[in-house]
């Protein structure tokens, strides 16, 4: 399979980010938690290539460890939202009737329950960990995939080619793979790439209302929250995590826009 240059660029970008997450800590002069209260908010310089944060910690070291934690968890939360969301959406569109009504009601119920409550409940089981936050997020976020999938799948399922495939004896798995997914892929790819960014930002929002900040671990979203007060003084400091997140989203978008359905169009 030949890859579109855009896709290659995206993959290269993601690879670079992964590399940064892995080797970054070695590049950094200090451990991510080491502070220097007398050298805060320093501008980037040779010793501190990305400057220091509000507690004089090395931004390079913190970004690298945040990249590892956040991007991994963001992908996890996207996957754990997209997979059940899409599957349920497909199921609802496929079966219609009470299956659709039931899953729809569940989705409504999830939306009606304050998502924050879910996240809080989950984080009560493992206080201080980040994964409950992300998993809690995906408990809410799957609805997005569910509804969008259902809406698109309904139209596709009404088409002749799906009817023909059924007549030819193909099962749901095949129809999903060959008929539905190619149609859904660009949309899902977009939602997922941006969803990874949304997950990180959602965590930033939680930090903003005072949830989830468990020092000293570095997490992209929470870094943005805690650096906000220093944005006016040292804008470059808060720019780093934003830049990193932006690059990650860009990489994902580029990789996914090369999806098969579009490449051949």
């Amino acid at each position, binding site marked *: 399979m030949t890859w579109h240059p855009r896709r290659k660029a995206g993959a290269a970008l993601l690879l670079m980010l992964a590399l940064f997450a892995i080797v970054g800590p070695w590049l950094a002069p200090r451990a991510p938690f080491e502070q220097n209260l007398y050298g805060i908010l320093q501008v980037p310089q040779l010793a501190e290539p990305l400057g220091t944060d509000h507690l004089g910690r090395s931004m390079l070291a913190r970004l690298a460890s945040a990249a590892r934690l956040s991007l991994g968890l963001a992908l996890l939360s996207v996957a754990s939202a997209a997979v059940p969301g899409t599957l349920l959406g497909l199921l609802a569109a496929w079966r*219609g009737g009470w299956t659709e009504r039931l899953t*729809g009601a569940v*989705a*409504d*119920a999830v*939306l*009606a*329950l*304050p*998502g*924050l*409550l879910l996240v*809080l*409940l989950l984080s*009560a089981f493992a*206080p201080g960990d980040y994964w409950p936050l992300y998993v809690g997020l995906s408990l*809410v976020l799957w*609805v*997005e995939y569910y*509804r*969008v999938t*259902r*809406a*698109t799948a*309904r*139209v596709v*399922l*009404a088409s002749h080619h799906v009817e023909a495939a059924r007549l030819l004896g193909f099962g749901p798995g095949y129809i999903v793979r060959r008929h539905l997914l190619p149609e859904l892929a*660009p*949309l899902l790819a*977009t*939602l997922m790439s*941006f*969803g990874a*960014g*949304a997950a990180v*930002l959602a965590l*930033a*929002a939680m930090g*903003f*209302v*005072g949830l989830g900040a468990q020092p000293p671990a570095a997490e992209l*979203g929470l870094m*943005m*929250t805690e650096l*906000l007060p220093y*944005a*006016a003084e040292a804008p470059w400091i*808060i720019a780093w995590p*934003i*830049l990193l*997140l*932006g690059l990650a*989203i*860009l990489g994902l*978008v580029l990789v996914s826009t090369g999806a098969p359905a*579009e490449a051949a*169009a």
Partner: protein
Amino acid sequence: MMRLLPGDMAFRIAAGRYGYDMVTAQAAEAVRAELGLGLPWFESLVAWWGHLLRMDLGVSAVTGAPVAAEIAHQLGHTLALALAALAVSCAIAVPLGFAAGLRPRGRLDRLTLWLSVLLRALPPFVLGIVLVAVLAVQLGLIPAGGDAAHGSLIAPALTLGLGLSATAMRVARDAMAAVTASPYFLFARTKGLSDRAALLRHGVRNAAVPLVAYLGVQLVFLVEGVVVIETLFAWPGIGHALVHAIFGRDVPMIQGTALVMGLLFVALNTLVDLACAGIDPRVRIRRGR
């Protein structure tokens, strides 16, 4: 469910009520006695349902005001903000996304891609601060916060809407790209419609199917997702209130809010479903069979 959460409810409520300096064990015990928090959970739930049947949502454990009145006040603000943000996001995402989708891989497509990546990577509070710093402080165009001044809806709605438009723009673009590649769109053009007319009559409606489904979900998330914006811009909305209620373990308030929001969402979703079916007859026809 609230009782599963860590921390003692009476203490939490006392903290919410009196401010943390004043929370003492005595205050907490007074709260416990006043609200009957010692009761087993099912008794309080039954009591709540009983009140509910009489259309009574109770009074907030923290503020002591009737829940219904508080929700009415806050929900109105939140809905105003959510709708304004949705309008902003549509106003940005739909034209830009559609225009980008008309020429996939064109210059505008690339530009909007960068734009939406940037908007998606910027946390709303940073965006909000930047907007206020530029629009309110530097240019003095809009008021910065609070609901008191006229036009104070602008900054929060803009912030929220911009953030939302990031993904919506791409969804719109993908949908439109699919439409422009379709034979009926080509036929609409070869039969003589101008690009604009073809877009308006045959492009928009077809591209709207996935977009409406997506925006429908967004509207729902908006109501809760506004927390940050409400906190940042001192907007007296329900997201902000709900967060406080959850932190303060204000059970009547949470129950009331969840109930009202649940009803609201069911209504919204039904509306979105109807809209989807209204836009696309194929869905209706298949169901009719």
